């Protein structure tokens, strides 16, 4: 089975709140000083899913695609170190501030250029913007079925059986191949690269494709960003007094009722 995994490099979600800043005028996140970007945490799960499917299937190839700046190479190398076979970086100044639809268009073009994919896996969302729409966008463009938020994926004859995570339970669906599946954290812990694999990945070359290589013009943003700002969160703490625990509880209950919270 030939699988393509799309991975994204994002600002470290563990960045302390105090270091997270946005440039409201430029509508951009200012990269935090000294904090390196990381692989979107859902993406190694997509890679893990690809590796397990390839193992179970006993063959095929896993190609990793990332759209981003040159540093996104590290996200690809991580997937290669986990065991993926090949890497492609889509990098072009024209892609510097594109929206989700343009991203989907670029990824779709790259997926077609890689060619011959039975399955395309992605993380359920990118933890920076947390929109989770790119899988659907790519599916729309390529005319492929899309199954989102998977916690389990199994090859089933010519198709797949996918278990999805819902708010109140799980749902099992079947999908024909080729298909696009976005993988959720419930899929389970991704494997960690062994040192030998890290070294092998370091030696592999990552192909770099520009907009011209893909033969696409991203065009104007479909969903332009109107404003970017950090909301001000105000909170205050009130200590409920009372001589006994019972009295404190009573006073607390009265407060909550007065505030119409209970």
């Amino acid at each position: 089975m030939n699988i393509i995994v799309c991975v994204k490099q994002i600002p470290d979600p563990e960045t302390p709140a105090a270091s997270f800043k946005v440039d409201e005028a430029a509508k951009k996140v200012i990269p935090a000083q000294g904090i390196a970007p990381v692989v979107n945490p859902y993406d190694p799960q997509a890679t893990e899913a690809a590796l397990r499917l390839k193992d179970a299937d006993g063959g095929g190839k896993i190609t990793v695609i990332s759209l981003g700046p040159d540093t996104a190479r590290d996200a690809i190398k991580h997937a290669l170190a986990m065991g993926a076979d090949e890497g492609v970086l889509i990098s072009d100044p024209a892609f510097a501030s594109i929206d989700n639809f343009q991203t989907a268009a670029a990824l779709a073009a790259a997926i077609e250029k890689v060619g011959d994919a039975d399955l395309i896996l992605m993380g359920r969302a990118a933890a920076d913007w947390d929109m989770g729409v790119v899988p659907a966008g790519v599916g729309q463009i390529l005319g492929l079925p899309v199954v989102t938020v998977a916690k389990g994926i199994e090859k089933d004859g010519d198709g797949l059986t996918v278990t999805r995570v819902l708010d109140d339970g799980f749902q099992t669906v079947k999908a024909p191949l080729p298909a696009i599946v976005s993988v959720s954290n419930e899929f389970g812990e991704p494997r960690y690269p062994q040192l030998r694999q890290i070294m092998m990945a370091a030696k592999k070359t990552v192909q770099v494709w520009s907009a011209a290589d893909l033969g696409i013009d991203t065009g104007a943003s479909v969903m332009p960003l109107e404003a970017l700002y950090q909301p001000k969160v105000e909170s205050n703490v009130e200590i409920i007094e009372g001589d006994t625990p019972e009295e404190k509880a009573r006073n607390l209950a009265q407060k909550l009722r007065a505030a119409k919270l209970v």
Partner: protein
Amino acid sequence: MDFALTPIQEEIRAGVSQIMRGFPDSYWLEHDESGEFPVEFTTAMAEGGWLGIAMPEQYGGSGLGVADAAILMHTVAKSGGAMSAASAIHINIFGPNPIVVFGNEEQRQRWLPPLIRGETRTCFGVTEPTAGLDTSSIQTRAVRDGDQYIVNGQKIWTSTAQEADKILLLARTTPREQCERPFDGISLFFTNLDREFVQIREIQKMGRHAVDSNEVFFDNMPVPVEDRIGEEGKGFQYLLHGLNPERVLVASEAIGIGEEALSRAASYARDRVVFGRPIGQNQGIQHPLAESWAELQAAWLMTMRAAWLYDQDLPCGPEANGAKYLAAEAGKRACERAMITHGGLGYAKELHIERLYREVLINWIAPVSPHLILSNIAEKALGLPKSY
């Protein structure tokens, strides 16, 4: 000047952190209490290829530098595994260095691959009860007898000898009186630790109970000539070559432990409320922790610089020694401060601070004491008369 980690170093840190998450505090505390060697951990590290990080690729290693190995050991020690984890693999990482540099091809083929795969466990026999830091005074003798040597004598503190099947052994082959210089006449062997001729007695010690240290007694132990590394009589020079990277690794381990203690202290100081405010709001608590932060950062930079020098094939004696000194002091102080920040709980096993403290003291004492480091720096970096 580039202070950033390379992508491979980032992967090392991430990959090793992930392994270490499989060995939580409770694992190390249990092993500290039972004294059992952390086999599951060493197996995981061997399977991941981590033991060969600094070994040449043609023998199954990864051919990376001491800086990369230091990042590995820093991550291991920082996980909460402290020296129980670090010492369990430390010898595999730096120990075979003399074999790589001074061994012949046949020896490298014979010894390195099983060491890297974790199939061979070795220990390191330098220290002796009557010689101490004055290594030229070692008494263990290897006397040539045809195509073998016969070894008699005693080593002390030999770590992991209980598990080891091999020993990297320093022994006198020519009596000191017959040598021109005190460090001549010492040879280095890598050989079987043959229980038939060796007695091993574990030393009861303050911490790191999971990784044994021992008295080792040799009684007419035969050692084939093929197990001698390099030329006879040059063993001490061979040993010296591996000392600087070892200092760097010991430094990185001490810093890892100190940082872990510090981060636990800061988190406790944020949460623990006494006199109606978090204890961390008092400068009496804050300042020592902040000072430790600065000390650990400085020690790390020195460690990385020493590693960089070594990896560039540049002399790094005073730097590696200085890094070990600063790191051990900083690590020890951070643990001490973490303990007082936790108040009574710092002394409780449950919070692991006392364990980190007991273990970081090893990096302070061994493999070389602060006194000897300072004497060496005074001599080598400052041109003062040699005092030892």
